[in-house]
């Protein structure tokens, strides 16, 4: 099953989002988080992201989709990805989708046994989801 890694400047946000994702998609999908800095501040940390990626890759042979918030999260992620073996890096997809909706849609897609490409598509499609859908 494809796993998820959620990256945020805030550990609280990442932890809360993981709770939400697990409640919607169930406990079968592995959801790793990398939130905040090592000393508990707001920010991102390449080593924390690296650790989350490694742990997720070990638990999810089919691959891992990464969702991130903004700003330095991208730079820290880039550093963390460079730190991975090329074979592992090939099993990671970085989503362009919005963090919250993308994580939920990706996790549900992963929970039904979808491929990494299908999970990536579901996360990206989250950008098109209406906030207040027209009935």
């Amino acid at each position, binding site marked *: 099953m494809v796993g998820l890694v959620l990256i945020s400047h805030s550990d609280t946000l990442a932890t809360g989002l993981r709770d939400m994702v697990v409640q919607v998609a169930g406990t079968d999908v592995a959801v790793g988080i990398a939130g905040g800095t090592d000393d508990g501040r707001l920010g991102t940390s390449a080593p924390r992201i690296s650790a989350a990626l490694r742990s997720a890759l070990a638990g999810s042979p089919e691959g891992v989709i990464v969702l991130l918030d903004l700003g330095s999260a991208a730079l820290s992620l880039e550093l963390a990805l460079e730190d991975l073996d090329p074979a592992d890096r090939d099993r990671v997809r970085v989503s362009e989708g919005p963090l919250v909706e993308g994580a*939920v849609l990706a996790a*549900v897609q992963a*929970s*039904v046994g979808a491929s990494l490409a299908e999970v990536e598509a579901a996360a990206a499609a*989250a950008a*098109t989801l*209406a906030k207040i*859908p*027209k*009935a």
Partner: protein
Amino acid sequence: MPELTLVVADPAGLHARPAARFVQAASRFECQIVIRHGGREADAKSLIALLGLAIRPSSEIVLAAEGPDSEAALAALATELAPYLGSPTLTP
């Protein structure tokens, strides 16, 4: 094509959690399953498609399945989703 008509019992409508349960249950079957609501139709195996239907409480939805295990799929969906969707009416 077997069909089921249901009235959404959940006071929040078909929101994220029940919709996700729906997608997970539907994905176990080979057949194609669609949900019709308000003149629109969505793939029951796609969460984004289901959420896009904006199914509100007490509204009527029709589930239709086509494929070798369609009867079993509708029966399973009706049973598993009864807490959210209320009692189904089977349309042969």
